[in-house]
């Protein structure tokens, strides 16, 4: 599996990271190095093996479905780069 510049560009877009066009060839090369390393996994016989979902066998705990926390609007907004009137503010999303 080899990644070309257009794939690198598509991945950067999916990851929402701006990459300058002149950086794409080097980025694609780095991806290929890493994927080449990962490629060893294709040697392993994984027939009939379950993919791991939890490293320690445990059942997620259940609790009563009730509000245990909340009313912390001020604390939640404290670190926002732009907060107005009790909301997070972002550039226009819909025209």
């Amino acid at each position, binding site marked *: 599996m080899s990644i070309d510049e257009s794939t690198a560009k598509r991945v950067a877009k999916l990851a929402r990271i701006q990459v300058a066009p002149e950086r794409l060839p080097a980025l694609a090369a780095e991806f290929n190095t890493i994927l080449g390393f990962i490629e060893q996994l294709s040697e392993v016989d994984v027939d009939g093996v379950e993919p791991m*979902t939890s490293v320690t066998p445990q059942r997620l705990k259940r609790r009563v479905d009730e509000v245990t926390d909340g009313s912390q609007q001020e604390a939640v907004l404290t670190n926002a780069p732009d907060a107005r009137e009790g909301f997070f503010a972002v550039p226009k999303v819909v025209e």
Partner: protein
Amino acid sequence: MSELNKLTLAEARDALRKGDVTSVELTDACLSEIDAAGALNAFVHHTPEIARDQAAAADARIKAGDAPAMCGLPIGIKDLFCTKGVPSQAGSRILEGFLPQYESTITQNLFDAGAVMLGKLNMDEFAMGSSNETSVYGNAVNPWRRGNDDTALTPGGSSGGSASAVAADLCLAATGTDTGGSIRQPAAFVGITGIKPTYGRCSRWGVVAFASSLDQAGPMTKSVRDGAIMLEAMCSHDPKDSTSADLPVPNFEAMLTGDIKGKKIGIPKEYRMDGMPDEIETLWAEGTAMLRDAGAEIVDISLPHTKYALPAYYVIAPAEASSNLARYDGVRYGHRAKLDQGDGITEMYEKTRAEGFGAEVQRRVMIGTYVLSAGFYDAYYNRARKVRTLIKRDFEDVFAQGVDAILTPATPSAAFGLGEASDDPVEMYLNDVFTVTVNMAGLPGIAVPAGQDAQGLPLGLQLIGRPWEEGDLLNTAYALEARAGFVAKPSKWW
């Protein structure tokens, strides 16, 4: 008492309880060492006011006869832990200015046990790195040097600041986190003890997430006994972390008898790597002999899928990271890029993340995005999770044969020079070749300083234990520590 900063946790605790020293004195001794150690770049956010307040409160508790395990002991906290009102940046530009409104469970547990926080410690950005060279704060520096050569060496990573600070006696101990070796590799590079507990022992709540199925916090200390004391204070069942284990936390220190007669120690043949330096090979053989002398039975074992642990890790960890780091979008906290006229929300995300994340983090987020993307999910991500099942099964088979612990080298080399590693990211990844299997299988592991190379740099051995049996593992490490007799300290140049 002279040089209070050089005390171990156990020594300081005993001196505090006897009234030979106060926490304020201990804390002041550490604070002045920190001030004089800027060259190490270990502490990146200083909290002397908090430290002095906590120390005074600890002294009052001790006087009142209420001295819990860590009462009055000054420690450093890795920048990955959210500490209320104190910068917690995970070594990243994207969290510049972020002030957590809550306290991580582990730091809360430590404070409840009376610990004193001196400040926050340098680390690789989002814990992604093995040399502390990806940090927004710049490199942390190893207090050790190669003989008289003044080349700056890495303290390892990602918990490089923690390792440097403890080895240089800037604090009595420090917290670290370990996703693929980030406690054990730096501990080995600076000649201290580092413990990664069983997955689920330490709450992940309030610890900035890298790869949630692998991340575990643990102590980095000057001795195995200190590791036992601090680990117990860190562990708890936490309803705020759904993977936190609801199991009683034993008194680990009480389990340190040093008696390992009849224990079965496995030596895995797959850890004998091509091109491994003779010094590491020799150290491993010496460690094996020490455990045999202590009465343990040494058995050769096989962990056949070892070589696939690193490649599987470099699918799973980036995949989880790409998901976890999606939250850094310039909306709720941290950095937001300045936008140009006409930029919409997508440009805001893309510019913010390009400016806020360093090169290695960007690389891993994008690799993770790729292996999770439509058409590749099965070939990469699912295959890696199946290989992970096999890696864990290897360990289960060995434990089923009665093996109590496994002895391996901690790292494939001694500390290397800052900037000496090649530009090939995969070469840097190989640093974790002996440690990453343990995270993949969720097991407890401990790095113990065991010797020095020809240039005088520390070398460590790793012991891997059965799940939830940290107490037994610590006792084996204690026996190894006693026989290795590692007492060397870096000579002060900073």
